[in-house]
């Protein structure tokens, strides 16, 4: 058994309090729930109105990148974490069916290119990769100067 000092345990609890996990079917008609969660997290983190709206759009693009534009049998897992300086979101697409081809993460079509331009403009860092056979997409948005309430 590993002992944890009260100070370390307190930091871990504080970190846990500043994160939200969302798990939902990878269905286009449920994407609004992802946007609502993003807006709620950004508001909770005291980001300004413009950044709340920017995150709402950025998370939509991240989710479309992960899941494509068709309903699937898979699920999307999203982890939102925030500090006073930044918000990070990591999304993973998981499918029960191994034979199902994972979403195309390459910027090879016009919509992916538009999505990439939007993310480039709105967030500070973003990326896609594959972890354990599951497509993953992530973004990080720092608080803009002068927007702290």
């Amino acid at each position, binding site marked *: 058994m590993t002992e944890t000092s009260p100070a370390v345990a307190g930091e871990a609890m504080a970190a846990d309090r500043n994160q939200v996990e969302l798990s939902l079917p990878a269905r286009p008609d449920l994407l609004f729930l992802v946007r*609502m969660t993003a807006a709620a997290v950004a508001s909770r983190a005291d980001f300004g109105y413009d950044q709340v709206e920017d995150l709402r759009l950025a998370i939509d693009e991240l989710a479309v990148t992960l899941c494509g534009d068709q309903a699937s049998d898979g699920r999307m897992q999203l982890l939102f974490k925030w500090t006073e300086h930044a918000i990070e979101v990591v999304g993973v697409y998981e499918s029960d069916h191994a034979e199902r081809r994972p979403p195309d993460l390459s910027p090879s079509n016009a919509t*992916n290119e538009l999505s990439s331009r939007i993310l480039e403009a709105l967030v500070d860092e973003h990326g896609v990769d594959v972890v354990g056979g599951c497509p993953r997409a992530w973004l990080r948005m720092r608080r803009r100067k002068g927007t702290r309430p």
Partner: protein
Amino acid sequence: MTTEVQFEMAETELRGVMVLRVEGEVDVSTAPQLRERLLSLADRGHTLVVVDLSTVSFVDSTALGVLVSGVKRLRAAGGDLRLVVTERRVLKVFEITGLTAVFAIHPTADDAVRA
């Protein structure tokens, strides 16, 4: 609390030009309806179409992709697809993707028809 994406479309004619008024959020779940409507208008012989987005509160890349496909098709037929955008957040999406150079964007449907 909102439990689904709000989205509606309505067609009107203004001085002989088809105006498609869109309301709500145009995202990956609703953009296919916009695509179908634009294809339908083109099939019915409307080569000049104004898409009024003044009551749209949200667009994403899939919505932009549909509009780009629409303008390509209508221009290939000798027509055009003009936009009405008044919402700052929506205009920003066109700006950051460089699509303000592709579309004629107007403040009112009347301006778009007269252009």
